[in-house]
């Protein structure tokens, strides 16, 4: 059983399009995250939700909008995609906010052309 699953694994799209990445965790965790990993492998937190409520919103363009319909799901919608949005996006969850052991999904490689 996959603990944190993201779909799709690969996403290739044109500039200006709108796309969504879905994430689900079956661990019963309260906290979920979105991270962006650039081409140099640098991981940066984007958002964090605790029990469906947004608790961390780093300096991310407002073209990025997370949505958490319930505490097991955290989706990421991106409007007006730009070339610089190309990266690997990771969803993660942890038992509680600030828990050091986060479980990551396998990532979604987004390529904007």
């Amino acid at each position, binding site marked *: 059983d996959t603990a944190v699953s993201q779909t799709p694994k690969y996403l290739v799209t044109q500039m200006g399009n709108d796309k969504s990445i879905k994430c689900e965790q079956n661990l019963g965790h309260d906290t979920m995250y979105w991270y962006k990993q650039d081409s140099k492998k640098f*991981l940066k*937190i984007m958002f964090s939700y605790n029990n469906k409520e947004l608790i961390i919103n780093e300096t991310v363009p407002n073209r990025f909008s997370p949505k958490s319909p319930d505490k097991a799901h955290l989706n990421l919608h991106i409007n007006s995609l730009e070339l610089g949005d190309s990266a690997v996006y990771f969803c993660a969850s942890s038992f509680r*906010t600030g828990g*050091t052991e986060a479980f990551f999904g*396998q990532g979604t490689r987004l390529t904007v052309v």
Partner: protein
Amino acid sequence: GESVGLHLPTLSVQEGDNSIINCAYSNSASDYFIWYKQESGKGPQFIIDIRSNMDKRQGQRVTVLLNKTVKHLSLQIAATQPGDSAVYFCAEKGGNFNKFYFGSGTKLNVKP
């Protein structure tokens, strides 16, 4: 923001040798330091953490050392195996809302 950095981007070791991966941090207020491992094509995986009031913690084949005086963190892997080949990230947790800040990663190559 906080800064977590690594001394070496790539480390090559012989199978069976011990590996030491180093990390420098800048935020004295961080309350936890964590090591993650990322294999190719996968998401990061938690290895071990250490609370800021400790200076050493051991796990299975891994030891993390924390030197708060010089703001230095290291991960020691005993008897390195080919399966240990991955990118290793140090991270620090602290501040409001317990944010994680990841370093840039060290790639560990294990030679057979």
